[in-house]
C-alpha cells in the first residue's frame, strides 16, 4: 500500500520569461515513480525543487510530510534524502572512496568507522568496490555515473531523487541499476527522470508524463500503455496519415495515431502512449522519430 510522500500543487518556476514549471501538480508515494518528458519539459527543475536545492516562485509543496520552505523542514528532509543531480561532479583529485566519504561527512555521518563502512557498502552496491582507491579522473564516464548513484544511496534514504540516472550506463549496468532501484523503492520513495521508456516499464510502479512545465499524465505504467489502445497498428507501407511511423523490419512499419479502417492493431507499449501524449512536435520526440526514419 503506497502512502503519499510528495504533494505539490501549482508549482511555478520561471527563468527569465521562460516558465520551466507552469502550475505543476503532483502527488506521489512510496515506490518508484518515473518522470518522462522531452528535453526542456521541466523535469530537472521539478527534481531540484523536490531535492530542496531550488525554491519555486510559487506553489505549495510537502515532502515526507514536511514543508521544504522552512529551514527546519529542509534540514529534516535532507537528512532523509539521497540526490543524484543531472551533472553530478566530483573533485577529480579525490579517490572514489574520498568522493563518497566527503558527501557522507556533509550528510552528518559523524562516527568515522561507521561512515567508512557505509561508504564501502554503497560503493559495493554500485559495483565500484574494487576501484575505491582510484582517482575520480581515472574513472570512466559510466563509473562516475555510478559514483554519483553511490553517494545518493548513503544512509538508506527515505527519498531518492535521481535525475537521468541511467545515462552513460552500459546494458549490463543498466540491468543492475534497475535491481538496485526496485529494491530501494520498497517502502521508500524513489523519483527518477529518464528518456528511456524501457527503464520506466522495467522499474517504475507509477509514471508521470511532463511537458512544458505541466503534468499530462499520472498513473500506473500499464494504465499509460492502455491509453494508446486502438491507436497503434502495423502495416506493410508507411501511412502518411499516422502521427508517427517507424520501420520495424523488412517492409513492416509501426504506426501511432488514428488508424485507418481495417488496420492491423497491435498491443501498445509505454513508448507509444508517451509519444501520443507528448506529440511528435516536441523537441525530444521529434528527434526520436527522425532517428527512426529508415536510411
Amino acid at each position, binding site marked *: 500500500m503506497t502512502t503519499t510522500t510528495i504533494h505539490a500543487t501549482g508549482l511555478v518556476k520561471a527563468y527569465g520569461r521562460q516558465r520551466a514549471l507552469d502550475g505543476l501538480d503532483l502527488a506521489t508515494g512510496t515506490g518508484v515513480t518515473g518522470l518522462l518528458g522531452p528535453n526542456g519539459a521541466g523535469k530537472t527543475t521539478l527534481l531540484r525543487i523536490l531535492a530542496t536545492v531550488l525554491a519555486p516562485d510559487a506553489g505549495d509543496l510537502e515532502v515526507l510530510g514536511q514543508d521544504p520552505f522552512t529551514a527546519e523542514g529542509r534540514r529534516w528532509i*535532507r537528512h532523509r534524502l539521497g540526490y543524484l*543531480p543531472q551533472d553530478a*561532479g566530483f573533485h577529480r583529485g579525490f579517490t572514489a572512496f574520498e568522493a563518497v566519504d566527503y558527501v557522507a561527512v556533509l*550528510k552528518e*555521518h559523524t562516527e568515522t568507522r561507521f561512515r567508512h*563502512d557505509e561508504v564501502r557498502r554503497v560503493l559495493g552496491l554500485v559495483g565500484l568496490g574494487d576501484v575505491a582507491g582510484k582517482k575520480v579522473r581515472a574513472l570512466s564516464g559510466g563509473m562516475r555515473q555510478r559514483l554519483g548513484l553511490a553517494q545518493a544511496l548513503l544512509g538508506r534514504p527515505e527519498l531518492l531523487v535521481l535525475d537521468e540516472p541511467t545515462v552513460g550506463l552500459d546494458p549490463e549496468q543498466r540491468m543492475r541499476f534497475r535491481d538496485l532501484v526496485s529494491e530501494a523503492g520498497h517502502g521508500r520513495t524513489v523519483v527518477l527522470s529518464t528518456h528511456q521508456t524501457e527503464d520506466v516499464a522495467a522499474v517504475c510502479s507509477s509514471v508521470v508524463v511532463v511537458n512544458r512545465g505541466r503534468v499530462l499524465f499520472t498513473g500506473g505504467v500499464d494504465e499509460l500503455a492502455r491509453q494508446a489502445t486502438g491507436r497503434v497498428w502495423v502495416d506493410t507501407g508507411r501511412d502518411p496519415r499516422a502521427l508517427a511511423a517507424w520501420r520495424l523490419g523488412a517492409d513492416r512499419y509501426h504506426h501511432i495515431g488514428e488508424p485507418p479502417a481495417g488496420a492491423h492493431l497491435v498491443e501498445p507499449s509505454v513508448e507509444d502512449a508517451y509519444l501520443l501524449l507528448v506529440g511528435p512536435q516536441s523537441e525530444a520526440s521529434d528527434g526520436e522519430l527522425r532517428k527512426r526514419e529508415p536510411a
Partner: protein
Amino acid sequence: MSTATNGWHLDEELARRYAENRVPGMLATSVEQHLASCPACRALLRPAVPTARLAAVWAEVLERVEAPQVGVLERLLRRAGLDEPTARLVAVTPLLRTSWLAGTTLVLVLALLAAETGAQAVALFLVLAPMLPVAGVALTFGPAADPAHEIVAGTPYSPVRLLAVRTLVVVSSTFLPAGMAAALLPVDVGLALAWLLPALTLTVGTLALSTQLTPHVAASTLGIGWVSVVLYGVARHDPFLAAAPVVQLACLAGLALAAAVLLFRSHDLAEILRRIP
C-alpha cells in the same frame, strides 16, 4: 591430497583447536598446507570457523587499506581540537590547493619585485594582499569551488557552517603566504603589517555584505573600494596611504560593523547561499 601429507587428515578436535588458534606453529603450518589441497578437511573445518571474528578482521583490513590517507594538515587540525568530520572537510576543501598556490605565487612575485624596486613593491603588496582572501571567499561559493556543489546543496550540513569552514581554510592559506611576503619587504614592521587589518575587514565584510548581495558582487564591490583607496593614495604621492592610522582605524570600525552584521544576519546568509545555484 593424501600423497602430499602421507594420508594424514584433520580430526574434529584438531580442526576446532586450529580454528581457535590453539595449534603450535609447526603443526599449524602443516595443517594450512594440507587444507589448501583437501576439500574434505576444509569442510570439516568450516563449522568451527568463527565467521563473525573473521568478518571483523577483514573489515579492519579494508579500513586500513582503503580509508583516505590522513595528511599533515588534517592531523594538525585534529590535534588542535577540531572534530574528525570537520577536520576532514577542511582537509579536502577543493579550493585549498588553488588558494595556497595563488598565495605562494604572490609571495614569489613580490619577493622578486621587492628585490628590484622597493617602495613600489610595498604599494603593490598593500593592494594585493588584502584582496587575496576576499577573492578566495568569493570563489568559495558555487560550482567553481566544488564540482560536487549541487550534491552538497542537498545535504543537511549547514551552509553557513560550511562557508565558515571554507573561509577558515582560504583565509589561513592566503594569510600565511601573505605574512611571509610581508616579512620579505624592505620596510619596518608597522608598514609590513599594514595589510593585516584591511585583509580581515574585507574578508569579514564580504561575508556580511553577502547577506544582501550575491557573494561575487559583494567581493567585487569591496575589492574595487579597496583598490580605489590605494590608487587615491598613489595619485596624492602617498603610496602607503593604506597604512595610515586613519585608514587602519576605518578598517577596524568596518570590521566591528561587519562582525555585528554577520552575527545577527547569518540566517539571511543561509538563504542567499541556497538561492545561488
